């Protein structure tokens, strides 16, 4: 079809385009390789296969924003189809006589059915593509969907602030429209023999434009010319997403969610030594750099981020976008010195770094397997090492943890004091063998508001004849939040203290009342040689009921309840069933909140937030959650049942009791630990003396 001169121009342009594309990819790969070693990946072929299936089924993206996800699907399959379409277009251009219209009847020996299918699919997909891209462009530029913007207080890289990502979207949007339209037109202009039923759209256009050889040439050049421009451009824009997202998914975290990557890479290359944590972008693991190229700024992470909800200057998506722009300027832009720029100046503000609750919602929701939370923890690690002036509350908590093993500034010896007020003694696991070592945790050991629940757990264990003990003053904070606030050294110290205490004790498994301790004991202690079977108390309680060691004497059908999944129990460790089964056995009327299980919304206390002195204004995550619970239960109310918000975490008890008060919901809903319901159901009561104290 093309004239020899046109072919010559095409080959030159194709060469240039390929050159720029290659340069783009080489640059990206080189940049990714500047990152530190990441934890080793296992079974890569399997991981890639899994990622391919995930991508083809659009599994991760369909988790939320269902309608938009379907449209994304159209775009995705449209573009996949178009990769093939472009190949055919090129062949039509350069192979004389290669013409697929009219089912390829002009091509000797062409498989008729196959060509028809191709024509139909490419024709219909063109329509889908045009529709999908129009929806996205309308959403971004006409409806100006807020979900695609950032809060005022979020640090943005200058080019991001100036609308760089929007420009990218516009360019790609215009490309898709022009390219697809041009392709359709080139097909339409070819239909010299009237409509082709296998090409309905092209035929329709042909009915308007008629056939034209010049038209074919022009449309072909517009269509393919755009491709030769856009492919190298993609490598330099946020649409590197097209190539990098599937790769990133395949290389996503394989270790347990609850296991943070070490502050210093375990793998050392060429004897290179690393400072713990991240100051500049190349201090991040290579996978964290890859994250930036995979992110297309869909902002789903921002939607689920409790800190962002609370008006804090944190947007996980902005972090990734900023990272990519910084990398682009440092590489394509010729400013390598930017690779040495502190992350807290260029990509995320210190306030944002310190407002993360490490709830994992951003990582869980990310369709492309990014881990912005991991960056934040690494940045915290270095800030602490470099003497960043900490929030005074965090500093005193850490100091107390270092000296007392708890963050409340209480003497170590007072840790087991709560047990003295029980009617029976609790074994000291450091002195006599027990089956269950109960790891109590700080909040449950010291906080006056939680102590009644702690004692109730003891009473029920006692009632069930469970052979259990505690470590009294030998227990230290497990370190989950210490690690997530970035104090890796203190975490290690606490791990060592606890492992030493465990070593002195004889037990078969650990049960804990604290999801945060549960997480680190289960997922992180093994790395330090502490391999134990660790259970959350809801798991043990359920088993005690199932084995008949506890019996429900009274079904609590007079309660209308909902249940909040603690991040570190649910999203991190997948313990969703045990508390729900408990509630079922107890016989309460139970209803899920819209955000449940994996989608549970953080109470706002994790990752050290509970230590922060500062209480910023605005609706707190926990308050929003209480409102969600009230709205959930409202539709079932009216039968006079008492409404309860059930928690299974001491921190939640505090956070949500506060939130009930601050939202003025007292009398409407009450926060209870699941243990209180179990106690009522199995008929264990608090002695009168304590209730009055």
């Amino acid at each position, binding site marked *: 079809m093309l004239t020899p001169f046109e072919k010559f121009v095409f080959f030159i342009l194709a060469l240039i385009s390929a050159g720029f594309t290659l340069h783009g990819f080489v640059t990206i790969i080189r940049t990714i390789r500047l990152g530190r070693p990441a934890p080793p990946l296992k079974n890569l072929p399997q991981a890639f296969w899994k990622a391919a299936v995930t991508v083809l089924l659009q599994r991760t993206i369909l988790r939320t924003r269902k309608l938009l996800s379907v449209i994304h699907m159209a775009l995705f399959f449209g573009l996949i189809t178009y990769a093939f379409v472009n190949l055919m277009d090129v062949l039509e251009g350069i192979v004389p006589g290669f013409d697929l219209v009219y089912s390829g009847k002009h091509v000797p020996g062409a498989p008729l059915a196959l060509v028809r299918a191709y024509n139909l699919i490419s024709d219909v997909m063109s329509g889908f593509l045009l529709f999908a891209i129009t929806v996205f462009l309308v959403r971004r530029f006409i409806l100006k969907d807020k979900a695609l913007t950032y809060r005022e207080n979020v640090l943005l890289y200058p080019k991001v602030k100036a609308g760089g990502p929007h420009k990218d979207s516009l360019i790609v949007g215009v490309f898709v429209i022009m390219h697809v339209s041009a392709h359709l037109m080139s097909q339409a202009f070819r239909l010299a023999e009237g409509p082709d039923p296998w090409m309905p759209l092209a035929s329709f256009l042909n009915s308007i434009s008629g056939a034209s050889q010049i038209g074919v040439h022009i449309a072909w050049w517009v269509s393919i010319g755009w491709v030769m421009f856009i492919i190298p451009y993609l490598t330099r824009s946020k649409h590197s997403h097209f190539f990098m997202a599937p790769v990133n998914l395949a290389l996503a975290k394989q270790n347990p969610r609850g296991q943070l990557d070490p502050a210093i890479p375990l793998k050392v290359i060429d004897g290179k030594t690393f400072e713990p944590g991240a100051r500049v972008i190349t201090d991040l693991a290579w996978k964290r750099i890859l994250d930036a190229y995979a992110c297309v700024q869909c902002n789903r992470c921002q939607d689920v981020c409790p800190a962002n909800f609370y008006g804090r200057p944190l947007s996980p998506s902005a972090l990734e976008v900023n990272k990519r722009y910084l990398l682009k300027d440092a590489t394509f832009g010729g400013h390598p010195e930017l690779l040495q720029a502190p992350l807290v100046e260029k990509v995320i503000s210190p306030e944002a770094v310190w407002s993360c609750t490490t709830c994992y919602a951003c990582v869980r929701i990310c369709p492309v397997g990014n881990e912005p939370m991991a960056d934040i923890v690494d940045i915290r690690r270095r800030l602490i090492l470099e003497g960043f002036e900490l*929030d*005074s*509350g965090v500093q*005193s908590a850490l100091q107390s943890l270092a000296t007392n093993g708890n963050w409340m500034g209480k003497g170590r010896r007072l840790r087991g004091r709560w047990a003295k007020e029980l009617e029976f003694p609790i074994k000291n696991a450091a002195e006599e063998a027990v089956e269950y070592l109960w790891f109590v945790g700080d909040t449950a050991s010291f*906080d*006056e*508001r939680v102590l009644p629940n702690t004692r109730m757990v003891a009473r029920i264990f006692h009632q069930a004849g469970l052979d259990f003990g505690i470590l009294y003053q030998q227990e230290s904070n497990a370190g989950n939040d210490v690690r997530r606030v970035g104090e890796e050294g203190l975490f290690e110290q606490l791990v060592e203290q606890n492992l030493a205490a465990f070593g002195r004790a004889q037990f078969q498994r650990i049960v804990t009342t604290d999801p945060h301790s549960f997480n680190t004991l289960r997922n992180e202690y093994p790395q330090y040689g502490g391999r134990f079977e660790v259970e959350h108390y809801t798991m043990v309680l359920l088993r005690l009921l199932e084995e008949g060691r506890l019996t429900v004497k009274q079904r609590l059908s007079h309660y209308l309840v909902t249940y909040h999944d603690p991040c570190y129990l649910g999203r991190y460790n997948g313990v969703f069933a045990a508390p729900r089964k408990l509630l079922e056995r107890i016989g309460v009327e139970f209803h899920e909140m819209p955000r449940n299980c994996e989608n549970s919304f953080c109470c706002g206390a994790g990752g050290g937030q509970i230590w*922060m*002195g*500062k*209480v910023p204004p605005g609706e707190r995550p926990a308050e929003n959650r209480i409102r969600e619970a009230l709205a959930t239960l409202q539709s079932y109310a009216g039968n006079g049942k008492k409404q309860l918000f059930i928690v299974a975490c001491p921190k939640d008890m505090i956070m949500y009791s*506060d939130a009930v*008060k*601050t939202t*003025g919901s007292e009398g409407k809903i009450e926060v209870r630990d699941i243990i209180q319901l179990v106690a009522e159901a199995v008929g264990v009561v608090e002695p009168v003396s304590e209730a009055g104290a």
Partner: protein
Amino acid sequence: MSGDVMVITEHMEGKFSDVSFELVGKARELAEAFGGESIALVLGGGVDASVFASHATLHVADAALNHFNPEAYARVIEALVKERSPRLVMFGWTVIGMDLAAWLSGRMGVPCVAYAKDVRVENGALIVSSQAYGGKLIAEVSPEGEMAIVACLAGSFPAEAGHGSTQATVIPSPVDLGGLKMKFLEVIKPEAGDVDITTQTKLVAVGRGIGGKENIELAEELAEKLGAVVCASRPVVDAGWLPRTRQVGKSGLKVKPKLYFMLGISGAPEHLEGMKDAELIIAINTDKKAPIFNVAHYGAVADLFEVTEAMLELL
């Protein structure tokens, strides 16, 4: 060795502090028990020294002593104590006395009791109650030897007994006050504009329990609603969360408001010294064993933020 009891008085801007009168009153009683005299020692000019009920008042009116100079004071006191050999030397456990008492003890090689809450003579022996360990324990000790130094917490004794009109005897400085290593330069008054918490009728006091500088705002909001002003215990000020002018306690100011509303203050003796005379003391603390509940009129074991926020809603 005499049975005299010497009191080192303190004054600032021409006024003696309450503790000076408290000590003089007590010194009189003790001197009588020892069969000696009570001697008030006044250092520095610009003050009327004839205001004590002591048996005698010595006044070293040297201008070098007008402003407190720890070195000059210490040298003069050392010389006079050596000269007079009193049975007991009494200081206030104050920012002035704290610079002098232990130093003198070290120089003289005689015992010193700090944090003294009570001093008495039993069968000729000196017995001192000291409120150490943050007020968690009271130690009763007996200083060995023929001379002792005590540094008493302010507010331990009635001040009235110390007021009198004993004519002061002006004496020259027993030591040369030239060539000191310490030179007094200037007094720095608190920045104008900040409130004087001692004249306020209502105070909201915050302690370590407030958690951080960031939360002071909440207390300020409450104070505003109550028509009060925010003050604080020592740790809060040391941490830089509020200016020194807002500090209540031994090393801060003594206040006597109609309402003293305490948020997260456990009640260390240092703080109690500055506020125990308030007319109505209400304390919120999460520790039900906090000593403040032994002093407050009303108390509640609760989270200070919750109570504050609940009050803000009501006001």
